[in-house]
Structures are given as C-alpha cells and as structure tokens.
C-alpha cells in the first residue's frame, strides 16, 4: 500500500450520526402507531375479559334482549348488531349506487371543467361534521319522511341511515373515480375502436378493470357506516331494539357506547364493562371488512 496523501474519501462522522438520528425518528413514528393499535386492542380485550367472566359468551351472542341497566339484565349483542346492520344497510343502499354512478359520470363522461369543479364540492360533503348530519336527519329528513309516512316515529333508523348514506357518498365516489381514472387509456381506445359507445366502454371495460379499487371504496364505505356514531345517537333514538325494520327506532353498537360512556354508571360495574365487549365486537367487524378489502384488492388486482 502506498502512503495516504489525503483523507477526502474517509467516513464523515457528522453525516453518519445525522443519518442515524433521522432513521431513529422515522422508526419512532412508525413504532408509535403500531404501539397505539396494540394498546387499544389490549385495553379492549382485557376489559372484555372481565365482562365475559360474568356473562357467558353464549348469552352475549344468542340472547335476544339488551338490558344491561335493568335488574333482570340481558346482554344480547344481537340487539345492537341489528341496529348497526339495519342503519348501515340503508346507508349503503344510498351510498353505493349513487357513489358508483357519480364516479362513472366524473371519470368517463364529465368534461375537464365539470370534473375539476365537482370533485372539491363532493369532497366537501365528506368534510361536514357528523353532528351536523345528525341534526339534519332529525330536524329535516324525519319530518320530510313523516309527510309521506305519518306513522314514522321521530327517532328512526331510516332517516339516520339515509343521511349516513349521503355522508358516505363522497368516499365511495372519490375512491371509485380514482380507480377508474387509473385504467389505462389503451383499454378505452380498444373499446371505442370496436365501435363501443361511451356507456358501453364505461360499464363493460372501465368498471371491470377498476374492480379492485371500486371494491376497496365499497369496503371503506361499509367501515364508515358500521363505525358511524353521532348521526345515529342524534337521530335514531338509542333504544335497544331487535329489529331489521328501518322505520323503527333503534340503538347501534356505537350509539350505545356513547350513551353509557356519557352516563353515570360507576366504572368497573358490569354495565360499564359492556361497552368494552361492544367495542371489541365493533373492532372485529371492521377488521373483518378490512381483511375482505385486502383480499379483494389482491384477488382482483389488474396488471395493466
């Protein structure tokens, strides 16, 4: 080896340290979110465990009454689940067709100007606070529905579900539109070159090609519906009611949790513990939808 005449190629300590600090900060940010998720699951499972020591799982799953605050207490989650499923069902009946139609229009039919104006407005609809939607349902939609159906109670799952659907439209429409616009122009040109109309191209080529993205949009919409709280707490009545009839009032898992969390039940009582069991049920439901979405994305992913 010859003698060194310069150290210009040697390691620079300051650069090395800076790199390590940045790497550590980035790792910390990522680890923080993982930690929070694990902590939430831990709390839910631990508190639910206490609940299930008193109440057998079979009662929780199969009992048809939900009366944790009565002397004759029943803990049938089906009651709350029916409210969640009914209101979500109504919401999705509004959001999925309308959201999909809007997405097809914006992606395949609207001109540049219309799209650039309409999309921010649509996204604004998703930014309205849910409490505003709740009062909109209670003080506008319910009276409106009562004009056509006078027997409709003041609190009902129908108007809450309808307004929840309006709230979800932007999520479904915006994500579906992104998925459709990502479909390469070459596929559309192939369709037009065969003599297809714009509608045929949109429905027969673009929509199937965007299936995985559209499915993720639907899944996100479902998760939003299942997890929505405030609209239901305000407009649906918070009465536990085993029903799939949307014209009745009902409590959902989320609105029940709000009710108990804000109420004066002593911490540690079995009534208070119910909200953790209910919360765990909700978490498992959204987890199942997320897994379904993940599977759909993998299974229907288009390789362009």
């Amino acid at each position, binding site marked *: 080896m010859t003698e060194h005449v310069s150290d210009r190629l040697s390691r620079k300590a300051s650069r090395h340290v800076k790199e390590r600090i940045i790497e550590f900060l980035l790792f910390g940010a990522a680890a923080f979110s993982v930690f929070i998720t694990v902590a939430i699951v831990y709390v839910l499972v631990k508190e639910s465990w206490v609940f299930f020591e008193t109440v057998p799982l079979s009662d929780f799953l199969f009992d048809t009454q939900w009366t944790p605050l009565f002397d004759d207490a029943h803990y049938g989650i089906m009651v709350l689940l029916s409210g969640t499923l009914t209101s979500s069902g109504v919401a999705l009946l509004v959001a999925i067709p309308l959201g999909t139609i809007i997405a097809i229009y914006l992606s395949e039919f609207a001109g540049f100007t219309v799209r650039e104006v309409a999309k921010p407005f649509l996204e604004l609809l998703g930014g309205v606070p849910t409490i505003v939607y709740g009062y909109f349902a209670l003080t506008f939609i319910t009276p409106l529905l009562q004009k056509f159906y006078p027997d409709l109670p003041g609190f009902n799952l129908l108007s809450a579900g309808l307004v929840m659907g309006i709230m979800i439209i932007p999520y479904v429409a915006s994500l579906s539109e992104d998925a459709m616009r990502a479909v390469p122009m*070459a*596929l559309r*040109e192939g369709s*037009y070159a*065969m*003599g*297809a*109309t714009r509608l045929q191209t949109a429905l027969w080529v673009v929509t199937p090609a965007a299936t995985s993205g559209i499915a993720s949009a639907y899944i996100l919409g479902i998760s939003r519906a299942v997890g929505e709280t405030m609209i239901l707490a305000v407009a649906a009545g918070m009465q536990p009611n085993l029903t799939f009839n949307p014209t009745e009032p009902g409590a959902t898992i989320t609105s029940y949790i709000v009710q108990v969390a804000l109420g004066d039940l002593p911490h540690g009582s079995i009534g208070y513990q119910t909200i953790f069991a209910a919360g765990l049920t909700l978490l498992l439901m959204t987890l199942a939808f997320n897994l379904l979405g993940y599977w759909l994305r993998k299974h229907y992913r288009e*390789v362009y």
Partner: protein
Amino acid sequence: MQIPTGTEPGVEGVVLKADVRDLDFYYGAFHALKKVSMPIHDHKVTALIGPSGCGKSTLLRCFNRMHDLYPGNRYAGGGIVLYPDNTNLLSPDVDPIEVRMRISMVFQKPNPFPKSIFENVAYSLRVRGMRNKNELDDRVEAALKEAALWNEVSGRLKELGANLSGGQQQRLCIARALASDPEIILFDEPTSALDPIATASIEELIIELKEKVTILIVTHNMQQAARISDFTAYMYLGEMIEFGVTDQIFIKPKKKATEDYITGRFG
C-alpha cells in the same frame, strides 16, 4: 357509381377501398397532416413508413375517427372517401361509431380487456347487440381460427385474456378486430412490443388476412413493410413524400428523400 381503380403502373384495374384527399389535421395549433393524399387499394396491404413524429399514426387514426375522443383535435380540410359508399369518413354527418363498426383497429401494445378470451372476441359483437349464444359461439370460433389462435386457446376460452403470452394477446386483439367482419383493419405498429418469433407469426397472419379485408399498417420497421405490404407510403413531417407499389419504393424510389430514408442515410 364507378369505383375508381389504381393508377400506379402494375395495379391498373385494382379497385380502391378508400382515397385520402388533401387531408389537413391539427392537434390544437400543431399542423400534423399537411395536404396528405393517397389511395387505399381493396384487399391489399398498405404500409405507412417514416421517422417518429412524421404523422403516420395520426393519419391511421383518422380512418376510424379516434381523434374524436380527445378535445382540441381538428380535421381541417380534405377527407377520406370510403368506397363503395363514396362517403367522406370525416364529414360531420358521419357517425364515428358507425365508422368504427366497419373499420377496426389493432394497437401497438396488446390491450386485451379484463375479460375471458371468449368475451374479448365477443366484445365487438355484443357492442352490436348480438345476444344469441349459438351465433356468438360460431363467430368467436371463426374469428379465433382466422387469427390462428383457435388451436392454442380452444380448451380455455374462459381464462382471462391477460394470461396469454404477448404474441397470443396480439392475435387475440386481431381476432377481436376480425369478429365483427370489418372492411378495413388498421394496424398501429402491431409487432413493436413482440419478440421476433411472435412478430413473424403476426406478419404471416396479416398477409393471409388480405384475402378477407383491406389492411393499413403503420410500421417503424422497413423490412416489415417490404415483407408484407403491396403498397408503401413514405411520410415526413406531416407530408406524403412518396406513395407507390412496395417493390418500386424499395428498389427504385422516385424521390431522393425516400431513397435516403430507405437506405438508412437518414432517420
């Protein structure tokens, strides 16, 4: 009406399928085709050659009105007369969808739809409202046979078109274009994304297909034009420099510019 016939030496009497006359075309402010004229002979292969940006694909896409899909494109004069109708394809009274039903297209990169092999070929028939299952089966089988793909896919018509190899996908796209019985098929550099073996099979297919349809093909590959075409047009900067019988263009071009391009001195 008497359909015009070829005027070049050696093709007197060959009927024209279409005639491009003084065609001007603009992308926004860019003058992409300048007073282009050329005949398209019936049941022959006509090749468009020239360096990138010369307007050959632009001219091809005028034939099926693909330019109508994008704002800012403008047919600015002249036209393409289709025979035997004697109608200008670019006239505002002509419905682009009707044009595309009769003039089909195969693209540079194979672009099968995200559907089964069967549905890919049936697409151009379904678009025309065909619903009869037996008729669809027959037409799809016939088109796949014409595209020399039937033997390879007959047992797996339900599989996705995208599962085929590149060359097979391009033959699937040719079958798709053939299924509706078009009068002209436009090929836009159909082999530029394929390997030499797949290219050879597509070239062979194009030569066979001229029994059935008139073919217009854009190609970057001069040897390809020489191998498969009956007529060749050389374009440069949006102008038609020379049109003629392929042998004449490659052996004895009339213009110096054509000779420079063909011999590789330029381009």
